[in-house]
């Protein structure tokens, strides 16, 4: 990147026409190097045309789906007849699965609130803006911290017997171990994992847990929230 610096300085002496600017770079920031991000084109028609194509593709796909799949309609609502299990809409079944393991105040209130707060504050954490790999510095120390956090988390989850959280957590933890022991210049997938920043790992773990919980709650839970196999 350093061999690409290509700038001009000192345009003219007319201060009104070419104001001179002084840039202060405070110790904690770095000067932003603006690389080449390509040329611009007119939104009309380039963007609008693509949006129109997106609309058409989407409508065609949804119309085909609507022709072959019928929206469910059960019996008239009856407060006296409780179906077993009574399930929330699919996007809340992850939460309902959590409710199976943890007390309602934790699974129903605390965890969703913390997740939303975490999502909101993501951009206001200015740590690691350059998204350096997790193992770029302090390898041993970071590895120890990771192992301690993982162990504490697993003890907590095992205590509540939250198996459908433990499984994706272990899977992602395994990938973290792979990324730690992978050496530079290995196979592509190992190299990809090795260069991931910590934020990538946290989000991937979150998505893995959320998807597992939702899938388990949707397909693998039957009467009394017991485990069932969807194909039986």
């Amino acid at each position, binding site marked *: 990147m350093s061999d690409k610096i290509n700038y001009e300085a000192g345009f003219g002496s007319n201060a009104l026409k070419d104001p001179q600017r002084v840039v202060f770079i405070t110790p904690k920031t770095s000067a932003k190097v*603006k*690389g080449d*991000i*390509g*040329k*611009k*084109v*007119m*939104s*009309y*028609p*380039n*963007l*609008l045309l*693509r*949006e129109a194509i*997106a*609309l058409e593709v*989407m409508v065609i796909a*949804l*119309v085909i789906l*609507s*022709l072959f799949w*019928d*929206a469910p*309609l*059960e*019996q*008239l*609502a*009856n*407060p006296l*007849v*409780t*179906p077993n299990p*009574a*399930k*929330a*809409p*699919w*996007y*809340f079944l992850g939460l*309902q699965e959590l*409710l199976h393991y943890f007390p309602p*105040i934790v699974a*129903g*209130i605390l965890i969703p609130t913390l997740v*939303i707060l975490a*999502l*909101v504050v*993501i*951009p*206001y954490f*200015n740590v690691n*803006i350059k998204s350096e790999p997790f193992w770029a510095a302090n390898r041993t120390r970071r590895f120890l911290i990771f192992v301690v956090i993982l162990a504490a988390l697993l003890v907590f989850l095992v205590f509540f017997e939250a198996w459908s959280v433990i499984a994706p957590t272990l899977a992602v933890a395994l990938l973290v171990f792979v990324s730690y022991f992978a050496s530079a210049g290995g196979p592509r997938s190992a*190299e990809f994992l090795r*260069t991931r920043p910590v934020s*990538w790992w946290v*989000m991937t773990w979150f*998505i893995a847990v959320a998807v597992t919980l939702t899938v388990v709650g949707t397909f693998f839970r039957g009467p009394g929230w017991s485990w069932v196999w969807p194909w039986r």
Partner: protein
Amino acid sequence: MATSPIELALNRLRETRAWRSIFRRGPARSNRTRSLAIFGNIFLHLLPVKVREQSLRVRATYYLGSFSFLLFLLLTMTGILLMLYYHPAVPQAYLDMKDLRFVVSNGVFLRNLHRVGAHAMVIAVFWHMFHVFYRGGYRPPHQFNWVVGVVLMLLTLFLSYTGYLLPWDQLAFWAITVGTNIISAEPVLGHDVRFLLLGGNLVGENALLRFYVLHCVILPLVAGMFIAVHFWRIQKDGGLTLREDHEREGHERQD
């Protein structure tokens, strides 16, 4: 240039005084009139006049944000049509579902399209959010727009959830009962919030009416305003987050 009769007719139409009074520009054949087409239009002016060629590539965004918005439009249109056949009352709401299936022409298709679109929108919004995260789209100067996006994600969930009750069948009733019971687990305000939402202690007529008003009026209006801010801020924050050349090369080597 204009060869077909349709094009000739269109060109003649563009020359009329009425057309010119509406659009106040000539045909979009120069960059000036193409710019006017965007910022001279109250809806399109939320978009930038120019976009980076790179940000138009499918692999840059998979058009997930576009799909989320277009699904919102589709759901608004199918929702308005469904409103013509729907009464938010017990048990008429359920009878209207039966009418949609057996009496209204294409009623099944209309309801299917709304339902499929709703599921698709939830998926598109979540996928959009995760994709933006992995691309680092939340970084300065896009911090605030990320927060607007989180609000839109929550509004999408609320919209879908309030719509879930409206068919007034067993599925709807018990899904809402289960969901709103979670709220009352909150020790301080839980019961009050649930009472406010349902208009009572049980899911009943008042709950149906409140969910109907939320689903058809309040939430779409609020979501519409946040969507406008979301689009506007993309433009004001200088377009999408794009990889610079050296990063992109490095990335492509990894692929």
